[in-house]
């Protein structure tokens, strides 16, 4: 896809890390690379806290622009279209900076055969917590600042009637809306 190199942080002590611990580890790993721009997604699809970009920015003493739907970089400045409740803001941000992007910000390129072959020789720097200078007791389960006090089944929403369309299903929808007096 075009990456020059990668850093893989791997350590068993990271299991159970909350978003802040994740941000601390990423910050330590990113600091080794001294990038001009730190690009992230908006949120993970498991924890989906959506807080890591701002946490990384704060830990690194950097500005951040979250929820970017478009980004361009020129002359040491990032120009970003940031989602708002009713549209978007155009933002100029000095670099280095953290920018989190929303899905659809760009159409990913297809990896070329040449690129795939070249990727095999790109360096992957694998480090553990000690290598990053992070005390393992401050991350993972050991360093968690929150605890689960209860897990319960949520009140289920009852499924209603399901009908197969025989060409007149729209009448069922209309009747349903009529009953609610919303049309």
């Amino acid at each position, binding site marked *: 896809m075009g990456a020059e190199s990668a850093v893989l942080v791997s350590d068993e002590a990271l299991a159970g890390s909350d*978003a*802040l*611990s994740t*941000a601390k580890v990423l910050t330590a790993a990113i600091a080794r690379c001294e990038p001009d721009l730190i690009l992230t997604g908006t*949120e993970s*699809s498991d924890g*989906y806290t*959506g*807080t890591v970009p*701002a*946490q990384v920015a*704060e*830990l690194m*003493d*950097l*500005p*951040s*622009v*979250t929820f970017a739907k478009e980004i361009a970089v020129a002359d040491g400045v990032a120009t*970003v279209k940031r*989602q*708002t*409740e009713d*549209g*978007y*803001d*155009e*933002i*100029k*941000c*000095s670099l280095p*900076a953290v920018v989190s992007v929303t899905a*659809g910000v760009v159409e990913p390129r297809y990896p070329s055969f040449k690129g795939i072959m070249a990727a095999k020789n790109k360096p992957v720097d694998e480090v553990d917590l000690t290598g990053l200078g992070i005390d393992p007791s401050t991350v993972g389960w050991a360093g968690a*600042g*929150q*605890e*689960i*006090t209860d*897990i*319960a089944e*949520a009140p289920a*929403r009852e*499924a*209603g*009637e*399901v*009908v*197969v*369309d025989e*060409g007149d*299903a*729209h*009448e*069922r*929808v*209309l009747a349903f*809306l009529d009953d*609610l007096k*919303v*049309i």
Partner: protein
Amino acid sequence: MGLSKIWIYGEAKDGVVATTTLELLAKARTLADTVEVIVHGDASVLATDLGAHGASTVLSVGDLGEGLPGPRVASAIAGAVSGGNGPAVVLCGTTYDGRDVAGRLSAKLDVPVITNVVDLLVDNDRLLGVEPVFGGTTDVTTGFTGGGTGVFLVRPKSFAAEDVGGAPAGVDSIEVGDLGNTAGAVVTNRFVEESSGPKLDEAAIVVAGGRGIGDADRYEMIETLATLLKGAPGASRAVVDSGWVPYSYQVGQTGKVVKPTVYLACGISGATQHLVGMKGSQNIIAINKDEEAPIFGVADLGIVGDVHKVLPKLIEALQAR
């Protein structure tokens, strides 16, 4: 009441308090003796509305100029906490700016954030957040283990805003600390995406289209139907990711949470991330070709059928009325 003081990150636009902020106030005043709201800009224009909803004081970090709220608000709260004047709890809405504030504050205070909260409860003087997981089938309750200030991100529409007739809130300012390099982002222009009907998260009827609509051109029938029903058009993530409609249309985990009187899901299978955003609707109608689609598990009326056959007839019938 278990907690002494809650602070809410208050959002407003053009002098009008955001509904999410009023929702947080409605819950917070049942949990703590004192509820204060921290805002930017002119706090005095917000004091009447915030006071009516239960806030005792509005604290302003001052005018942002064209800067973003995150660094300044987080700095002000962290400063108060380290000075011994901070609250027991900070509540932010799960909004664009709310997440910035919570994330930065979390790093400053060195406490994680309890996120995706849909309910709050006090247990032994500790605030706990309830978070739905696995597509809303399971509720997980979480609390902080340390004794310091806790930060919570609460999803919009978790509570009903309530005007309790409180006196206008007092107005005060709060000091912002040294921002270092964090304030380097500046808004140079603001764009409002025009939509003629009601707002997606306020509409009584939401008509949402999913991948089953087929392609961008045919999404138009969702817009047409929404207009006929005086509702708002919405979309699943698949449709937004495909670029058929702007992100502001998205309903679900990453998009908006909606609780309309009627939610009409068209060609939406009902991925867990989508269900989280619309399961609280009062009535759900789903139209989908696949009878196994998870959306039927939450629908009051499920139509197993082709949206391209059902919707045109529905539109025609409504136009004839």
